[in-house]
């Protein structure tokens, strides 16, 4: 059970906030001797496995590190091309770490605007009157939940398929966005959110998230008394509170 990532997309399809909260898994490190028994190819400025799936290394995985040094796209840590480096017998034996390619910030921007269009097409192709766009998208490894506000901002959460209570999380994120991004006088609408109150990890969903943010929010208020929002009547204890 986990929350994998959170995306906030503005009404034009631009990504204004993104958070990842998963540790990369399924990485495999192996030592190879000269003729490399994997076929590697260059794709989107990354070196990917094209053929030769084995020992946890799967087709589509990227070269993440060579001899313990992280690679930088298609270049090694000292600026040589990975494919050239691995073609040279003098560099062997070599230890290579493979794993799922991580998303760059450019790709995240692209995926956010892609979802924005898919959302619109989903509502256009509806067989029923008055349908919204995609609210929940299900795959075998994750579920994507999307909440669009009346003003057109989309909050997108990627979570484990069995994780419950995402709807309340989405509304909570909306509330935090309204309180800490919109009410911040230095925030300009539709622009990436940099307000530290919104982005700081004390409210961020951690993998053991249990469905309640109250603790984190109270802590936020403690730390930033100067930015307290107006008090309101608490529905559970029926008293004027900060909760």
């Amino acid at each position, binding site marked *: 059970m986990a929350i994998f990532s959170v995306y906030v997309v503005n009404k034009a399809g631009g990504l204004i906030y993104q958070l990842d909260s998963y540790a990369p898994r399924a990485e495999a490190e192996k030592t190879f001797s000269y003729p490399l028994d994997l076929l590697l190819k260059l794709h989107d400025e990354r070196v990917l496995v094209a053929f030769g799936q084995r020992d946890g290394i799967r087709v589509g995985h990227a070269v993440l590190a060579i001899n313990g040094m992280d690679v930088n796209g298609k270049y090694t840590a000292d600026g040589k091309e990975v494919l050239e480096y691995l073609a040279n017998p003098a560099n062997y034996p070599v230890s290579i770490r493979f794993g799922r390619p991580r998303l760059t910030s450019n*790709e995240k921007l692209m995926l956010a605007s892609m979802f924005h269009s898919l959302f619109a097409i*989903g509502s256009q192709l509806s067989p029923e009157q008055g*349908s*919204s766009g995609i609210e929940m998208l*299900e795959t*075998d*490894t994750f579920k994507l939940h999307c909440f669009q506000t009346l003003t057109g901002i989309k909050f997108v959460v990627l979570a484990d398929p069995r994780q419950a209570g995402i709807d309340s999380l989405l509304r909570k994120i909306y509330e935090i966005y309204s309180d800490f991004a919109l009410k911040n006088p230095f925030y300009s609408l539709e622009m990436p959110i940099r307000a530290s109150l919104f982005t700081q990890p004390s409210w961020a969903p951690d993998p053991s998230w249990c469905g309640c943010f109250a603790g984190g929010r109270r802590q936020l208020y403690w730390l930033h008394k100067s930015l307290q929002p107006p008090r309101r009547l608490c529905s559970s204890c029926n008293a004027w509170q900060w909760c």
Partner: protein
Amino acid sequence: MTVHNLYLFDRNGVCLHYSEWHRKKQAGIPKEEEYKLMYGMLFSIRSFVSKMSPLDMKDGFLAFQTSRYKLHYYETPTGIKVVMNTDLGVGPIRDVLHHIYSALYVELVVKNPLCPLGQTVQSELFRCRLDSYVRSLPFFSARAG
């Protein structure tokens, strides 16, 4: 619970078959355009989902739902795509879509020498059997409207 419509695409994006049962709203564009839009959306969702996934995927994209309908998706290793739109109350129907592929499409179209592959299915037998199969589904109800 009800079934709205069903699309069958081949791996090149040709719409092999389309049928509808309780469809209350048309997309407002010609049918050919609608098939292209649907195939394009599924194609993009597939690539979107494979990039977004935090883990390696096996089946990939399964379904999405909006406030009014749910789209179920099933793809075979050969790239045939079966897409069924139902209302929100319908759970996972992977086995139903697999049955449409294996017991109807393969048996009545692929094994039929008179049906050229890669074109809209003309077989009347396939249409009838598909229609009666969908009508016999437990979540298919002839709700008026």
